[in-house]
């Protein structure tokens, strides 16, 4: 493996409900822990990435009293953090930074703001005026419904079943059952998923991600810095971003962003699907994982339902997916992207404990940001152990 920029620090905040916390406290505690995990100090940080909702990076820079020379405020939904990691790697290669901090915190659960599950922002708000929202929001288009439309279409085109989708939730829960931090740890069955109350048909409650408070942070560093960090570096091999959207009404629903970012990420790194030891896929809903696996090329379009069966995506299977329990059972404070890279880092360091994927060398992270049947981003990132 060539000497590439690497993830040298990673931290997932252990709390899942913290009514006394602010998002900033999650961010601050996570940042400090990730920097310490790397064996670095705050003074080493010269780059900062944060989802740049109005001037967000400025606020975090101030709160943590940092003086970065490189900023990234990419805000493309829950996938943003994978973009930040990729951009940080490029910036380090270009000499624009040596140590980049990426942090996230949210109190979605305590604030009872199920981020993303409410209708689109009030379009009466002049700051959010959008001609495009006027053609779906008035129909009561909630986030779960936009994913359900994709699931329904997938079932129609390929005969995918509820039971096949449910296995994705069952596998996630099986993984969560061995993760002491996970919000839900009691094992579930396919029958439990089908019997859970309907949210937006064909999706049931257990097809949907949990809502938690939480936070996390990642530190990306140059190869030179990485040599002296506490853990073995997790190399940023490369990746790709993509967007999918309505295409002026011409979108078919199953043409998700992963269809473009997946093959591009493999082309950029010279890797192929058979090289991947584990996947961390943003599982906002079960259907998200199914369409993503197809888009990334692990199976042909339409074969995702069969692909996830028989333990293939469970720990010990051919392609373990979401080994921390995923957004479906571990944590989802509103945006999941950073947690995909944190779990991958533990797996590639070989310190994931009882949920360690044996001989894990290559991890694939894929984040989806936005609305699966509408506009969304997809970011595919490949990470490797030395």
């Amino acid at each position: 493996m060539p000497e590439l920029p690497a993830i040298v620090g990673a931290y997932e905040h252990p709390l899942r409900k913290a009514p006394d916390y602010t998002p900033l406290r999650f961010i601050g505690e996570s940042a400090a822990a990730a920097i310490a995990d790397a064996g670095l100090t705050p003074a080493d940080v010269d780059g900062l990435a944060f989802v740049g909702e109005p001037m967000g990076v400025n606020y975090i820079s101030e709160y943590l009293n940092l003086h970065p020379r490189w900023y990234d405020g990419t805000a493309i939904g829950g996938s943003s953090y994978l973009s930040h990691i990729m951009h940080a790697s490029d910036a380090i290669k270009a000499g624009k930074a040596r140590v980049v901090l990426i942090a996230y915190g949210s109190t979605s659960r305590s604030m009872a703001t199920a981020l993303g599950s409410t209708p689109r922002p009030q379009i009466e708000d002049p700051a959010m005026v959008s001609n495009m929202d006027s053609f779906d929001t008035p129909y009561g288009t909630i986030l779960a419904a936009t994913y359900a439309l994709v699931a329904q279409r997938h079932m129609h085109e390929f005969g995918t079943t509820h039971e096949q989708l449910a296995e994705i939730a069952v596998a996630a829960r099986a993984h969560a059952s061995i993760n002491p931090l996970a919000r839900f740890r009691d094992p579930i069955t396919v029958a439990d998923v089908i019997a859970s109350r309907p949210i937006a048909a064909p999706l049931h409650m257990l097809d949907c991600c949990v809502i938690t408070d939480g936070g996390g942070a990642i530190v990306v560093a140059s190869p030179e810095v990485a040599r002296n960090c506490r853990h073995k570096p997790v190399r940023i091999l490369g990746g790709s971003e993509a967007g999918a959207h309505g295409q002026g009404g011409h979108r078919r629903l199953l043409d998700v962003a992963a269809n473009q970012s997946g093959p591009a990420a493999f082309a950029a790194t010279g890797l192929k699907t058979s090289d991947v030891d584990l996947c961390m896929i943003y599982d906002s809903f079960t259907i998200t994982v199914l369409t993503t696996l197809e888009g990334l090329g692990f199976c042909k379009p339409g074969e995702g339902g069969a692909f996830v069966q028989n333990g293939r995506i469970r720990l010990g299977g051919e392609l373990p997916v979401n080994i921390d329990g995923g957004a479906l059972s571990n944590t989802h404070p509103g945006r999941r992207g950073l947690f995909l890279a944190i779990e991958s880092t533990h797996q590639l360091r070989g310190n994931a404990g009882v949920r360690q994927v044996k001989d894990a060398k290559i991890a694939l992270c894929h984040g989806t940001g936005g609305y699966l049947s509408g506009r969304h981003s997809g970011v595919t990132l490949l990470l490797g152990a030395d």
Partner: protein
Amino acid sequence: MAAALKLMPIQSPESMPYWEGLRARKILIPECKDCGHTFFYPRTQCTKCLSPNLDWKEVPPKAKLWSWTVVHQAFHEGWADEVPFVIALVEILPGVRMMTNIVDCASFDKLKIGMDVEAVFDDVRETVTLLKFRPAAG
């Protein structure tokens, strides 16, 4: 009470003929005068060639069901009295699809992708008509 809290569309200058069309019981879809492409939602340029030379094409008040979901969970109080209700993507012209509600649907079991649906012009406010659909008669 709850109805007042529903989110309403912004009838912007670029889409105003569409909204005025619905009030007059017509469905107007933008069509590019340069390349002939039809698309939705309305905007000031063609989604294929970015030409600003657009026209409005009136299309028949019918469509085919592309995908659908029944929403059981009210995430917004404006819809609390309406669950369960149907959100759908329908194909109004070959390749041109739009979000909508399927109304007057006696049984959700009857919903089948590919089925014919017909337009319902729903005057949800004095100045707002939404294009919805219902299963086609017969």
